[in-house]
């Protein structure tokens, strides 16, 4: 099947939805594709209409009324067939989408670092557990240790607690001094969610332990206990879940595959959210981790700019630019301590898809050599988890993604030929 849109938006989180709405106001056709079962991205994962945040509900309302917007959930991109043609796959079909302008809003994922026992069932990311619980996982009565770094830990703990989880403790690797400095700096950025963040940080739960990090997860067939290093020494904690994540990283695979220029861990965009490729715009966390407020306004600017309403977009620049330094504040406050790169033992798994341990990888001095010999990065996740891990552990840089962008059925790849010839 071949679909057509004036503007194609990838990602139905805050940035993507804001971009779609803005673009739709110009009257042309808009398609949004997203790989989750419902819209909302990570922060609004349990459904737009369920959110406290009125912006989510408003977006939901307006987009439902916009006849020229079509949202395709459960759709993953296989690859690009041409500069204006990409191929997607759902659970039961494959389609190609022809577009004039492309807006990438692929969001962020957590930085998941290896430590002994991290592969035990029951060990997840912090946002990871939140996502699983928002998808309906029954967490009531379960003992959870939340660990890692960043304001996401507090949001996760609050979210889990509201669903009945017992938060045993929250281990933040950064120091109390830095956390407090971060909290007090938040006053420069007004906004409901920022206020909420500030409130949470200022009234930290009693079980919040800064300068602490997980050393090991233990258990027979699943997680039973976590050992942590704290400022007061070693701590052993019994629990059912360990929700551990060390900050957020942009999902850059698609942008890189398309050839968009990146600087460090972010796509470079101009003031109109335009990437180095003229018909591709980027918005939200992929331009730098800066949270939902930034994502919403970047999305709107991208949607306006993609539909040539540049003057309308310019009006929003000041508000958007206020968030630039928020991103660096976040990065600085929660920068990772060096001990986190030294937690692995020789038998600690680093590549989870192919079961490659730290000891095997240590012998190599670059990603490509290690990958060829150990098969690290050749499994189903194609290096998304272990690439980040080895970058943190060894400083290796990974290669650009090859198609398919995510695992794709053979029948879909066969359909590629017909799909690309349709374009000609």
């Amino acid at each position, binding site marked *: 099947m071949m679909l057509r849109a004036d503007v194609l938006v990838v990602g139905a989180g805050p940035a993507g939805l804001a971009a779609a709405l803005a673009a739709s106001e110009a009257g042309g056709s808009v398609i949004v594709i997203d790989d*989750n*079962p*419902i819209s909302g991205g990570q922060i609004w994962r349990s459904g737009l209409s369920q959110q406290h945040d009125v912006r989510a509900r408003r977006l939901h309302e307006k987009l439902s009324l916009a006849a020229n917007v079509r949202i395709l959930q459960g759709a993953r991109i296989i690859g690009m067939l041409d500069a204006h043609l990409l191929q997607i796959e759902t659970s039961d079909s494959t389609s190609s989408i022809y577009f004039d302008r492309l807006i990438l809003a692929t969001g962020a994922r957590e930085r998941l670092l290896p430590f002994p026992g991290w*592969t035990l069932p029951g060990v*997840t990311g912090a946002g*990871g557990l939140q996502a699983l619980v928002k*998808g*309906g996982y029954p967490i009531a009565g379960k003992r959870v240790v939340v660990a890692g770094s960043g304001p996401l830990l507090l949001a996760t703990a609050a979210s889990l607690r509201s669903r009945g989880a017992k938060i045993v403790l929250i281990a933040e690797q950064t120091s109390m001094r830095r956390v407090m400095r971060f909290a007090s700096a938040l006053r420069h950025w007004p906004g409901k969610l920022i206020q909420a963040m500030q409130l949470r940080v200022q009234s930290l739960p009693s079980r919040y332990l800064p300068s602490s990090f997980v050393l090991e997860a233990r258990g027979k067939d*699943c997680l039973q206990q976590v050992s942590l290093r704290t400022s007061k020494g070693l701590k052993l904690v019994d629990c059912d879940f360990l929700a551990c994540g060390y900050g957020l990283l942009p999902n850059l695979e698609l942008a890189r595959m398309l050839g968009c220029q990146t600087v460090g861990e972010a796509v470079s965009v101009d003031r109109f959210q335009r990437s180095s490729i003229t018909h591709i715009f980027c918005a939200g966390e992929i331009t730098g981790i800066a949270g939902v407020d930034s994502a919403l306004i970047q999305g709107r600017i991208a949607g306006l700019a993609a539909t040539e309403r540049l003057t309308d977009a310019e009006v929003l620049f000041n508000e958007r630019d206020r968030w630039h330094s928020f991103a660096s504040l976040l990065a600085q406050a929660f920068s990772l301590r060096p001990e986190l790169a030294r937690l692995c033992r020789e038998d600690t798994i680093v590549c989870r898809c192919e*079961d490659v341990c730290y000891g095997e990888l240590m012998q190599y001095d670059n990603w490509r050599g290690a990958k060829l010999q150990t098969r690290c990065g050749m499994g189903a996740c194609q290096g998304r988890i272990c690439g980040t891990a080895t970058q943190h552990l060894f400083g290796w840089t990974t290669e650009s993604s090859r198609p398919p962008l995510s695992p794709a059925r053979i029948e879909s790849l066969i359909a590629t030929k017909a799909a690309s010839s349709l374009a000609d």
Partner: protein
Amino acid sequence: MPEMLRVIVNGKPVLVQAGTTVIAALGEGAWVTRRSVRGTERGPLCGMGICQECRVCIDGVMHRLACQTACHEGMHIETVKATP
């Protein structure tokens, strides 16, 4: 009253609310999805379709991501626990 669905997890019928993801349908205390290359049991890690640890067999098709798939009425779900 939320809409309920009936799915079959490793041969056993389970009632879940509409909108529940497959991983959540595995049930309380049971969230082993697959076996690793060296045979150890694994469960979900990232919760958002990236780590591929939550691969299960859904309606006869292997390697589908449980964290990103919503249950539908009559769905057959098999994890590594289906063939111990």
